[in-house]
């Protein structure tokens, strides 16, 4: 009885996860500049990968500790790498799309410009 419930929960989580990963991939292709692409490709893909891995953990309950560790690792590292990459592309001079006001202009000046 409990195994059947776990199987249903696992399949629902797998479907939700692969749907969010597909939406994230479409966002990566369709968005106009690097910052929009980063936020489309990180938030949705983090949720999608976490749902998929936890779904496999529900389908095969012997492996749930490894799946939980992998989920925790993706939850900690994926937003961090996105943030580092956004800061690096802003510092290396990639212009945002339709920029109106730049709040970070003072903060990211190089040493010679100050």
């Amino acid at each position, binding site marked *: 009885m409990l195994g059947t419930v776990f199987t249903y929960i696992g*399949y629902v989580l*797998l*479907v939700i*996860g*692969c*749907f969010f*990963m*597909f939406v*994230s*991939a*479409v966002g*990566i*292709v369709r968005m106009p500049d*690097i910052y929009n*692409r*980063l936020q489309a*490709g*990180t938030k949705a*893909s*983090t949720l*999608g*990968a976490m749902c*998929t*891995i936890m779904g*496999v953990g529900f*389908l*095969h309950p*012997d*492996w749930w500790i*490894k*799946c939980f*560790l*992998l989920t925790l*690792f*993706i939850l900690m*590292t*994926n937003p*961090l*790498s*996105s943030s*580092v*990459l956004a*800061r*690096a*592309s802003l*510092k*290396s001079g*990639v212009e945002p799309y339709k920029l109106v006001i730049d709040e970070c202009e003072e903060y990211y000046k190089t040493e010679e410009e100050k």
Partner: protein
Amino acid sequence: MTLIDVIVVLIGVSLFTAFIRFLKGPTASDRVMALDFMTVVAVALMVVLSYIFDRAIYLDVAMIYALIGFVGTVVVARYFEGGL
């Protein structure tokens, strides 16, 4: 064609869609971002494949691959910043 086959095909389609951005990307940051996304999707694909083939060793491979992809992204971002 069962449900798990549909899931694997959908994950594969999203990998291929991100590879289009990896080929097109105007700046180098776009390519690194597409590669990071492909790493996360490939980790999820490896976990699903480990359920299909019933091998627990693929989970360890997925964990090491996630670690290497994260470190690679951070190092390349530091290189763009000029701190390396």
